[in-house]
Structures are given as structure tokens and as C-alpha cells.
């Protein structure tokens, strides 16, 4: 919280074309995820080593690094999906809205309702588009058809795919293209109005045009949501994110403003990676 003013000023400078928006951001930005001394093991292998990160609300935070650096593991720790792998153990803490989510008393279902996730490969359910979107609301007890209809339209509009699918809401989602499927997955995520959207290499399985559409969508979404995105594509991180984390061998090497990380990295290893010397 102490660095808030500093960071706020920087944002102010960057987005000076729209003073009003910048001002509102300064006022409201606070830390949503505060990771302290996080270590994680898969059995005996030490996958995350002493991670310390403060992630702010309503920003896009990108996590980059070579494969196997722990970036996917870290993002899956943020909604505890990492527990689906048997033999995982953690130490340290991750505060989400000031509650330690690694605490066993936290119900993962509640956490995952507030923190949505978009996966590497588009993974709609083998059901109709409509059924995909209402899945979240339904499992959380919303049953009225009128409300569900409204949610479907709003979520699909939010994911910028309403116009493409509004005439075939009751067809199987697997009839759509990969890029459309991924936007359906984003819409499915929006349907329960999460605060945070985690994206685990959401465009790695998509063609360049679909990738561009998803990136544009992310810029739209960041006005309302906090986005944390893992990507292996440095240009993508540079294009869409406010902050960038560079990870290597399970450690955070560098965490700073995206512009600064790419133009003036403070760590030699970051420089080597972004200039393509390895990875």
C-alpha cells in the first residue's frame, strides 16, 4: 500500500489522455493479491521459491518466463487449482482481499467463484453455448430463466461474441472456431461476475487473428476486472499489460511496470530473456 502513490503517479503520466479515468484509478487501486514468501513443491521438486508479489486491482499483470519457470503453477495457486495435482504442498501466504487463501478454512468453491479462470486450450463444456454460460450461475443456485437469459446476453456481450452467436445459442459450443470457443470460455467466466480473471496462456492455441480479438477484449475487460495473464509471448505481454513479472526457475526475477521491464530491465537475466538469448 505504501507504494500506491508512486505507482499511481506513473499510471497518471501514462494515461494522461484521459485524466478522469486516471484519477479514479489512483483513488481506487489497492492490492488485491498479496503473495508473501510463497514456496511450492510437487512432491520433492521445488517449483516455486520464495515468491513475493503485490498485484493491484484493475490492472493487467502479465507473467512471462521460459517454460517450466513456474508461471503456470503460480497462477493456478491463485485459485488453488494447483491442488488438483496430487502431492502438492505449499508454505507462505497469499492474501486475497486480506484473507489468506492458502488457509484450509477457505472454501475453494467461494474463491473460484470470485476468481475466474481461462485456460490454455479452449475448454467449453460439450453442451450448448447457452448451457455453457449459465453453468456458473446455475451451480451457484440461480435458477430463474429470465435472469439466466439476461446473464447469457450480458456475458456474451461482455466477451464480444454476442453478435456472432446470438442466433445459435442452443447449438453445441464445439461447433465454433477455436477463437470463438475461447471467448465463450471468457463469457462463461464473466457470467458469475468475478473480481479477478486468471488467464493461463489463453491465446497459445489460437491463430493470430483470434489472438488479436482476445487481446482487444482484454483491454476492454481491464476496465472492470483485475486480469492476471500468463503468456509465453513477450510481445503480447508488452502490448496488453500494465505490469510484468519475469520468472525463472521458480523465482521472481523482476517485477515492474511493463514499459520499464521491456525497455530498461534491471536484471541481467531479464535482459537475456527478452532479447532472446534463451527461452
Amino acid at each position, binding site marked *: 500500500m505504501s507504494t500506491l502513490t508512486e505507482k499511481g503517479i506513473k499510471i497518471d503520466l501514462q494515461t494522461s489522455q484521459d485524466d478522469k479515468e486516471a484519477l*479514479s484509478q489512483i483513488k*481506487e487501486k489497492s492490492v488485491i493479491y498479496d503473495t508473501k514468501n510463497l514456496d511450492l513443491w510437487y512432491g520433492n521438486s521445488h517449483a516455486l521459491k520464495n515468491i513475493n508479489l503485490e498485484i493491484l*486491482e*484493475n490492472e493487467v499483470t502479465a507473467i512471462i518466463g521460459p517454460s517450466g519457470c513456474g508461471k503456470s503453477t503460480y497462477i493456478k495457486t491463485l485459485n488453488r487449482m494447483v491442488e488438483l495435482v496430487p502431492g502438492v504442498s505449499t508454505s507462505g501466504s497469499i492474501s486475497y482481499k486480506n484473507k489468506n487463501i492458502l488457509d484450509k478454512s477457505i472454501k475453494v468453491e*467461494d474463491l473460484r*467463484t*470470485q476468481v475466474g479462470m481461462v485456460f490454455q486450450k479452449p475448454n467449453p463444456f460439450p453442451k450448448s453455448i447457452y448451457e455453457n454460460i449459465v453453468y456458473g*450461475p446455475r451451480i*451457484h*443456485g*440461480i435458477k430463474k430463466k429470465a*435472469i439466466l437469459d*439476461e*446473464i447469457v446476453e*450480458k456475458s456474451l456481450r461482455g466477451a464480444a461474441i454476442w453478435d456472432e452467436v446470438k442466433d445459435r445459442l442452443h447449438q453445441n459450443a464445439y461447433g465454433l472456431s477455436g477463437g470463438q470457443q475461447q471467448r465463450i470460455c471468457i463469457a462463461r467466466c464473466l*457470467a*458469475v*461476475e*468475478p*473480481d479477478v480473471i486468471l488467464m493461463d496462456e489463453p491465446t497459445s492455441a489460437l491463430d493470430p487473428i483470434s489472438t488479436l480479438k482476445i487481446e482487444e477484449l482484454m483491454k476492454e475487460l481491464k*476496465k*472492470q476486472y483485475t486480469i492476471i495473464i500468463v503468456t509465453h509471448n513477450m510481445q503480447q505481454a508488452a502490448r496488453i499489460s500494465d505490469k510484468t513479472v519475469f520468472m525463472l526457475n521458480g523465482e521472481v526475477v523482476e517485477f515492474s511496470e511493463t514499459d520499464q521491464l521491456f525497455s530498461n530491465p534491471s536484471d541481467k537475466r531479464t535482459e537475456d530473456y527478452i532479447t532472446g538469448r534463451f527461452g
Partner: protein
Amino acid sequence: MTSHSKKENNAVSVSEMIAQNKQKKSFHNFNEKSIPVFLFLLASITILTTIGILYTLISEAIHFFMEVPILDFFTGTELKPLSQDPQFGILPLLNGTLISSIIAILVAGPIGLMSAIYLSEYASDKVRRVLKPLLEVLAGIPTIVYGFFAFTFVTPIIRAIWPQVEATNILSPGLVMGVMIIPMIASLSEDAMSSVPNRIREGSLAMGTTRLETTFKVVIPAALSGIIASFVLAISRAIGETMIVTIASGSSKNFTFDLTQSMQTMTAYIVEVSGGEAPAGSTLHYSLYAVALTLFAFTLIMNLLAKYVSRKFREEY
């Protein structure tokens, strides 16, 4: 919080509704805890079945062995349960079971294995996709139908060629049982052979060997454990087979190696005695369970052996 912006232009706030619904989620909590317990109880029915089988067989067989010494049972060549001086030697039944199973495997072994070689090594994808399911139809025919076929068709043909053969004999059901287990050997051996990676085959073919040489020198040795396991399973299946031998081999309890004669298998004995009016508590009644326990032990050992063979000698590719 900025989240109000996504809610303010809308009458309903989904996230608030979800938060409210959370209050009344006790039903879900109950489900999450009780369903695994319920499913575990269902799963334990399979364990209870095994316990039931073992308990049934052992507890009743014990009564039998209190009256008939276990050594007499396993070494006795005479089975005369209904005579004045009843004899309970299991050897005639073991003999009938083994002879019928040996005949069956002599038919099914070569034919099944050659079918497997054809399907795995020679047939095109298209041909295999037609032949394999057709062959598996054989495995889906109820055994009672094979029994009918053996009794009303195969036996008369054999008797026409070889007149000494009796109306009920061990040869006919043995042969038909062989046909019945062909798909088992063909299918399991084919699986074992087609799981041998192509690079191994290609390595041999590239040396200028023919398909036949590659099959016998490379593929079959590599798939041997699976092939042996398929034979063992097929024999186990033949040992436990009931209806074909009951119908076509009759109920004579001779201890003989003459294929033209009627012999009784362990399974057929169980059908005969349980269908008759063996008074509960009689030695005859208990003998049913002693024979069944022997049968159960035989098939269990064969099945475990098949599993052991396919695990122990599995080739590492």
C-alpha cells in the same frame, strides 16, 4: 471497489445473488459429504460379493471334508455319489475338465493365434475393421447356443465319421468350446501384437526380411507375454464353462482318457447335483461346494497367473 460499474446499469447483480445463495448452501454441503460415503458403500458390494463367494464355498465345503477326508477327495478315482457305498473322488471330474479344456485349447490356440497374426500383421485397416467385430460376435453367442450346436449338430457329424463315438462324449463339446474361445485368444493376442511399436517392425523389415520372418522373429517374441496370458485366460474360461459340457458330454463319471466317451466336468457335476434333489445337509449336497471350491481355486490361479505373466514379462519398448 470498482466492481459496482459492472452492476450499476443492471437491475440484478449476479455476484450479490450468488453471495446470498451461499447462505442456504447447507444442502450442498450435505451432498458433498454424504455422496462419497454412499458411493463407497456401493463399491464395497463388490468386496461383499467376493466374501460371499468365499464364505459360501468354504463354510459348506468344510462340512464335506469332515465326512470325506481331503486326501481321498483329491486322489480318489471313483465318483459314485448315489451308490450304497458312496465314493467322492474328484479325479474323474478333474479329468473331464482338463480333457475338454485341452481339446478346446488345441483348437483355439493355433486358430486364434493365426487369426491374431493375420489381423495384426497382414490385414489392412479396412479388412481388420470388418473382421474383428465379426469375430467378436462369436464371443457374444450365449454358451447355451453352443451347447445346442454341439449336441444337435457337431456330435451327429462326428458319429457319422467315427461310429464308436457315443451320443454324449467329451470330444464334441471340447471342439465347440474351442470355437467359443477363438475370439478371446485372437483378440487378446492381437492387442499384444499390435502394441509392439512399428519402429521395431520397420527395423526388421528394412533388413530385407519378409512379414512372416518379422512376425516370428521380432513381433511374437516381443508380444509373448500377452500371447501367453491370452492362452491362460482362455483355458481358465474353458475350465469354468458349463452349459456346453453339461449338454453334450453327459453325466458319466468314468475316469477315462477315451475321447469317444461321456465324461463329466466339475461344472457339469454342479449343475447335475444342484438340479437334482440332494437333501440339504447330505454329503452329496456338501460335495457340490467342495467341487465348486476346487473349480474356483483353479480359475483363480489361472487368472492370477495370466496377470502375473503379462506383468512380469512385459517387454519394455
